[in-house]
């Protein structure tokens, strides 16, 4: 059994927003998902009924095992993640703090957008191509029999066009838009406040008297 073994590196990702009690809660949740093993595999996420409803469920689970999100040097997918990795992924969703300065806020925003970017860029080549974007749209719209594949495609194409116009400006007739790079992605989201949309806030749970 034993305590959650987390190195100092992980808690610094969270500080000062997360208390040790919240990490304990997350650890308990981790143990529940992993069924008391030390690591979680993709199959463990199947036991969450609330997640079944989510159309991009596959992408979310995938994001947990994506090595780019786990801040590892290599590329590709991990087979299993331990608690420290779990916390690393959770850190992308921490809420902003009032006392953050400009530089911190900017870094924060970039991190969250990078996470989202990785979700779209499934072949890990650093660009979101038209096909990858179409995949995402299809997943979001999957399951509706009234929606044909053509409609999903046209939505994706329209959105890519808009992205291209923001990023590259007017394109010549024989110019091909390769795909959205991360810099373009950042440009698209300029001015739009995403920090408050992409966070999970913990309730103040430190009123429970545990035996410490």
């Amino acid at each position, binding site marked *: 059994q034993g*305590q959650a073994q987390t190195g100092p590196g992980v808690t610094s990702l969270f500080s000062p927003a997360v208390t040790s009690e*919240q990490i*304990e*809660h*997350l650890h*308990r*949740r981790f143990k*529940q*998902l992993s069924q008391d093993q030390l690591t979680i595999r993709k199959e463990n*996420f*199947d*036991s*969450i*009924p*609330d*997640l*079944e*409803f*989510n*159309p*991009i469920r596959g992408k*979310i689970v995938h994001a947990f095992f994506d090595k780019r999100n786990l801040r590892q040097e290599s590329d590709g997918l991990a087979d299993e993640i331990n608690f420290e990795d779990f916390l690393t992924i*959770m850190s992308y*969703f921490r809420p902003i703090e009032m006392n953050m300065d400009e530089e911190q806020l900017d870094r924060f925003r970039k991190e969250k957008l990078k996470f*989202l970017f990785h*979700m*779209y860029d499934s072949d890990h080549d650093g660009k979101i191509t038209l096909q990858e974007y179409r995949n*995402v*749209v299809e997943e*979001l*719209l*999957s*399951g*509706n029999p*009234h*929606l044909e594949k053509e*409609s999903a495609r*046209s*939505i994706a194409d*329209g*959105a890519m066009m*808009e992205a291209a116009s923001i990023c590259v400006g007017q394109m010549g007739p024989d110019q091909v838009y390769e795909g959205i790079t991360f810099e373009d992605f950042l440009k*698209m*989201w300029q001015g739009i406040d*995403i920090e408050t*949309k*992409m*966070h*999970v*806030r*913990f*309730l*103040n*749970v430190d*009123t*429970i*008297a*545990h*035996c*410490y």
Partner: protein
Amino acid sequence: MEVLWAAGQVGALWLALVLGLIVLPSALGISLGISEVYMWVLVKTLEWATIRLEKGVKKPQPQMLQTPTAIGIIERDETPMEKEIARLHRADFEFSHIFYFCRKGFEAIVEDEVTQRFSSEELLSWNLLTRTNVNFHYISLRLTVVWVIGVIVRYCFLLPLRFTLAAIGITSMILGTTVVGQLPNGSVKNYLSEVVHLTCSRVLVRALSGTIRYHNKENRPQKGGICVANHTSPIDAIILTNDGCYAMVGQVHGGLMGVIQRATVKACPHVWFERSEMKDRHLVTKRLREHVADKSKLPILIFPEGTCINNTSVMMFKKGSFEIGGTIYPVAIKYDPQFGDAFWNSSKYNIVSYLLRIMTSWAIVCNVWYLPPMVRKEDEDAVQFANRVRSAIARQGGLTELPWDGGLKRAKVKDTFKEEQQKNYSKMLVRNGSIG
């Protein structure tokens, strides 16, 4: 030789005390007040322990404990999907849709409503049982001493006592009902069978050190009705039969349970189904309907959730029980987890270790509310009726209502549910004019 004789004397004395102080009063339906004294001592001890804990943790103010565990550990944003997405973007489909689902997905991973119902409720303060203490750190010598005394009391005194009582209760149930079953059918037989059932129930409740408070006894289920309650553990049935006689419904088991079932059915018309019969829903409904139609028969007791839930919420009621017809008498049962956790996590513990845990807890304290009877309205179907009854029970017991099926303890979500959500989302897109 001397030692044996002395041991025999002690044993006889012990048995005499048990019979005189506990079994006899149960037969007569009176209470000597021993359990009240015990509960009072227990409450005082636990209060003292809580105060010591709070001092030990050195909180700045002794704030009264809130109930964060009831709502969960994260703040969930309950804005409906349409509002959230409309807020994020203009009418076109953009990357922003993914935000909403991403966050919902994360919320579900950190904490989901369903899985937490299948593990024991967390306590607000420690109740001196190791099993409810997640991290045991040393606080003070006095607390540890009290804890050790608690262990000795529970395992060396309470456990043998409870075991004796349970043995007496079960044996007398089997013998009593077999004897009564020999009598010819008539009012004498019914009366005696009620006496036997009630006495044995009371003995068994004392075997668990149960303190039960019944509310609104005027709404108690009448003959020819169906009694419906939320399910937390196998002892729910004993809790209810402590106050009245019911006809139980269930599957035939083997072993000791089977012996009890076979004996009791001779005295009282319980409805036991063979495993093969359970599969045929029409057969089950037909038999129950016949039972209910006979107004002289005792009310049936059914737990429509189908499985044990951890007593913080009420899950989906299976509509089968509500198709039988007749009057439904809802009953809400709420256990107080401070004194002992009654929830049976059948995937974690088998029945024997569960009973052992129950018998080494402090006590089983619960409240039972009898709700006014309900009938199905003209324009309601079975599912709506089931939900109406469920809301009434949840509201009375202070439990949350979840639309999920208790079967999710072991199975996965049905595909039909998933498709619903996806359809909603795409319909919304079409409405926003993103397509064509």
